């Protein structure tokens, strides 16, 4: 048994990348030998107790999957009791997904995904989806801390957070910039550079590929669903700006002719969130095709009427529009958002007063902005809460003799501080985004051989080619090889 164990623990990371890669591949070959399964299964209890999920990631995962398979029998959809939350295999799976070695796991994408799916299904089977949320999130971020490559695990995870109402746990994934699909393998430019999965890479696209198994094949629906669900998480947290951004991605998805139903759903929510975020409809992102907008508009007439009533400040009509299309909101699962739009009406009307007036009494605010049913004594707390939450730039001035409080818009000294604070926040945010974009451009240039260094190299090879005379036509082909580059450069110096 000990000899068996020593074979399974042969991989260590204290060697060169090439050596590490070779040892991992040898171990995989060993684990995949046809006769090995029964031996591993027979000793699975001992092995799972003695292997470390971090140090011996591949062996541990292999034995765990074998054990689960054996309990499932021939039926892959069967969930044995031991994998249910609290069961022995559940505990082992959770421990593994939260502590695997992020380098070794790159060689076992299929198995990783299989285990993630099992944990999710097990939690859902006992109606406790929340139990899988933290595990799946940690597994995603452990595999790829930047979370820049969209995988099917991302979509499963976001769906899970919505079902279990664990919105905040989704934020660490959603706040990262997801801007890659798993890399397509077999591209021409890749034949010059095949990175070792176990090496340090600037981008996770080096090891999350269409062949790695970390994700099932993604369709346009998956892509749209991820961003729609992400927007829904932000809506639940009332982070309207982020929700609007995610919905903008949904409606900007390139299409050739037909518009997807998910995009129409996204457009409906985009209209409502736009009202909640800005108090008015914002213009569509420039990249949305005009035919998409036309198609969406024709399918969302009740939403447009509601938005129109809101923008025109007609509270009675707004209520009437909301009432008349109740069945539509319910059918679209947007009843909650519509209620919030109605509640936001007073707030938006108060905000709009700042465009016309520089100061008003509470009685004036009640007259101009509030819906007719709100008594005057309720107006001051409402306005005070808006000012205190920083929703708009104004101050309240009370007087001792008069009960009526003044609302004064844009106090110069205070607004200066607010502006500075706002600008500071924007610089930090834009700086981070710029860093992500710049890094991505750098990586793309490098992959496509379009970086400055490569242009310089091309220039030099051209010069070299010219200097060598017309007879030497094979030279450019030769310098494609890295070994020749050193000689050429040295040749240039001399």
């Amino acid at each position: 048994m000990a000899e068996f164990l020593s074979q399974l623990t042969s991989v260590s990371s204290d060697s060169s990348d090439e050596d590490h890669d070779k040892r991992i591949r040898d171990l995989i070959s060993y684990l995949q030998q046809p006769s090995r399964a029964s031996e591993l299964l027979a000793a699975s209890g001992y092995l799972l107790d003695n292997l470390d999920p971090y140090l011996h990631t591949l062996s541990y995962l292999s034995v765990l999957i074998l054990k689960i398979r054996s309990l499932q029998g021939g039926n892959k959809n069967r969930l044995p009791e031991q994998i249910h939350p609290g069961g022995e295999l559940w505990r082992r799976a959770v421990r593994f997904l939260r502590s695997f070695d992020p380098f070794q796991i790159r060689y076992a994408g299929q198995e990783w995904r299989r285990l993630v799916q099992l944990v999710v299904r097990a939690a859902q089977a006992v109606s406790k989806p929340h139990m899988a949320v933290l595990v799946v999130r940690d597994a995603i971020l452990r595999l790829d801390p930047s979370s820049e490559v969209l995988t099917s695990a991302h979509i499963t995870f976001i769906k899970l957070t919505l079902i279990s109402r664990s919105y905040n746990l989704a934020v660490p994934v959603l706040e990262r910039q997801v801007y890659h699909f798993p890399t397509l393998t077999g591209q021409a430019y890749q034949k010059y550079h095949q990175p070792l999965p176990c090496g340090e890479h600037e981008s996770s696209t080096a090891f999350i590929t269409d062949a790695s198994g970390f994700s099932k094949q993604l369709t346009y629906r998956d892509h749209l669903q991820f961003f729609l669900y992400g927007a829904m998480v932000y809506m639940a947290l009332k982070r309207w700006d982020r929700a609007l951004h995610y919905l903008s991605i949904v409606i900007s998805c390139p299409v050739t002719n037909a518009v997807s139903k998910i995009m129409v759903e996204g457009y409906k929510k985009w209209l409502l969130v736009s009202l909640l975020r800005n108090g008015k409809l914002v213009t569509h992102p420039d990249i949305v095709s005009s035919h998409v907008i036309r198609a969406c508009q024709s399918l969302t007439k009740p939403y447009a009427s509601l938005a129109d009533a809101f923008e025109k400040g007609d509270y009675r009509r707004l209520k009437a529009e909301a009432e008349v299309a109740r069945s539509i909101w319910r059918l679209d699962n947007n009843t909650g958002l519509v209620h919030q739009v109605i509640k936001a009406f007073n707030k938006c009307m108060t905000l709009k007063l700042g465009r016309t007036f520089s100061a008003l009494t509470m009685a004036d605010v009640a007259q101009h902005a509030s819906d007719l049913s709100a008594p005057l004594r309720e107006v001051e707390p409402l306005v005070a809460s808006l000012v205190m939450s920083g929703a708009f730039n104004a101050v309240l001035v009370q007087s001792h003799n008069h009960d009526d409080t003044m609302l004064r818009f844009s106090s110069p000294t205070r607004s200066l501080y607010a502006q500075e604070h706002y600008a500071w926040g924007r610089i930090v945010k834009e700086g981070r985004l710029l860093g992500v974009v710049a890094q991505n451009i750098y990586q793309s240039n490098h992959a496509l051989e379009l970086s400055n260094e490569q242009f310089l190299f091309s220039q030099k090879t051209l010069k070299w080619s010219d200097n060598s005379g017309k007879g030497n036509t094979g030279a450019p082909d030769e310098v494609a090889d890295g070994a020749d580059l050193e000689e050429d450069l040295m040749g240039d110096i001399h």
Partner: protein
Amino acid sequence: MDLPPLSKEQLSAVLKSSRSPTELYNTLVEYEVEACLMPTTDSDVSELLSLFYSTFFFAHLLTDQIYEARAMTQRMPQGLSQNDPSLQNCLTLLRAVWQRKYESIYKILRELPWPELLRPAVESYETYFQEKTLKEVSYAYEAIRPATAANYLGLDTTAAEQGDPAVIQKFTAVGWIWDESSRLLHPKPIPTAPEKDTRLYDEVSQIMALVGKYGG
């Protein structure tokens, strides 16, 4: 993360040892998975769960996550939340905080019966809420009557209205000016410490350098 099993003693230890509300919240997030597995039929376990969810609720409030706090109340076992007095108090408090009913918030925190183990969290939240509100009021008002200010901070409004020096002193101590003649307080904005960001670029030129390096 391997944590000791959830128990009253462990909960108390976590409350005492957490160096910040965020740390407390992060630890309790881990324990929620264990709490999900506990049966609510056992009365001892129900008591533990009530304490756990109440503490977790306060950890949400202390980290200013009111929307997530609401989601948490929907996640916890509904049978427990409908019958447990401590969790019922949490729901009443949530409603008051959601609706910004200042007087009710202080009343709920001070007068409703809270389990002994939860007391430190309740007291921490009262202090946190007072400080947060004081900052907000200092930005929102240019002039404010002492009674209104006292109401926001859960102080004696009658004493404040009469210009009680003890109440007025609480405001002047943070830089507010008391105008005896108009009997109004003039708040001075209390600056919020900016979020520490190690990746903050000190100069815009650094950003431009970044564009120059990669954008070419």
